[in-house]
């Protein structure tokens, strides 16, 4: 019985107590762990909000006592709203990719829509693309903040903001690489239903990164 590249003993030939795949159990625990990670980051950000000795500040204009220069509030809500939307939609394409892999081999529903929906390559690609767009927005945001004088060393807000969103960005980056790898495998030999667990755990990770952003968007950007 040949094995795919499985870290765990494949469930078809080794008994697992719960009948669930080891990798899926592990990824859920990993996500639980990540909850604590982001809770620490978010609490730090919230604690330091409003404790800055110097600006720029997220929601308030600020006058530099040395230069007399007035700095506007720095967060750019419209731009971030767009990137938030993109990330949300990437979750949609992610579930579609998973469904496509799971349903491979089953009859494709008639019509163009059916063919589109059953293309795992398309949806994996879309997810990666939207992830990359989100990262592009973040890169734009970071550089424009730096131009406005907010660096990671500038004040408490700078340190905690860049670290929190940077950690999230790093997670998105890892996700894009992960999904990109799956896409490459899909192109090379086609992902089959037996590979679905690989896509499933990548998807769970991806959605988790998305829900973290849902929290960040509200707590960091919208609440003043």
């Amino acid at each position, binding site marked *: 019985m040949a094995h795919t590249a499985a870290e765990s003993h494949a469930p078809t030939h080794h008994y697992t107590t*719960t*009948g669930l795949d080891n990798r899926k159990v592990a990824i859920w625990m990993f996500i639980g762990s990540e909850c*604590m990670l982001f809770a620490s980051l978010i609490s730090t950000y919230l*604690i330091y909000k409003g*404790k800055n*000795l110097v600006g720029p500040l997220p929601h308030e204009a600020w006058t530099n006592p040395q230069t007399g220069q007035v700095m506007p509030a720095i967060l750019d809500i419209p731009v971030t709203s767009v990137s938030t*939307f993109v990330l*949300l939609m990437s979750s949609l394409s992610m579930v579609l990719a998973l469904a496509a892999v*799971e349903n491979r081999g089953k009859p494709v529903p008639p019509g163009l829509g059916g063919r589109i929906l059953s293309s795992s390559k398309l949806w994996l690609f879309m997810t990666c693309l939207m992830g990359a767009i989100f990262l592009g927005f973040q890169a734009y945001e970071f550089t424009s903040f730096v131009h406005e004088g907010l660096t990671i060393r500038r004040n408490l807000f700078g340190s905690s903001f860049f670290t929190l969103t940077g950690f999230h960005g790093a997670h998105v980056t890892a996700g894009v690489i992960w999904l990109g790898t799956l896409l490459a495998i899909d192109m090379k030999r086609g992902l089959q239903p037996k590979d679905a667990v690989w896509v499933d755990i990548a998807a769970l990770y991806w959605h988790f990164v998305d829900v973290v952003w849902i929290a960040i968007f509200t707590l960091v950007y*919208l609440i003043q």
Partner: protein
Amino acid sequence: MANDHGSHASPDHAHEHPTWKQYKWVALILTVITAFEVWAYYVPALVASPFFVPMLLIMSAAKFVIVVMFYMHLKYDNRLFKALFTGPLIIAMATLIGLLFLLATHKAEGGIG
């Protein structure tokens, strides 16, 4: 014990995942909530009201739950996964709230007089 009696079907077809029909509705709801959140941000009267923050928190919690339930399939999947996720989530939120209370008293002064 609780964990032992999950779904025993093999994971390949452990659960009937929802389909495009549901997924698109989920996406639509998420979009609408997000749009509403951003709109609220631009209404000064709303921002000033005491409901603003609770309202935003509730909306973002709703989005959170929807994604977890439908896109992460927690609604359909094995009970074990629900436990693996909600347990840590509760501890994480309790810790976050505890920290906010404990560290609220700090006053940034820089140097000392």
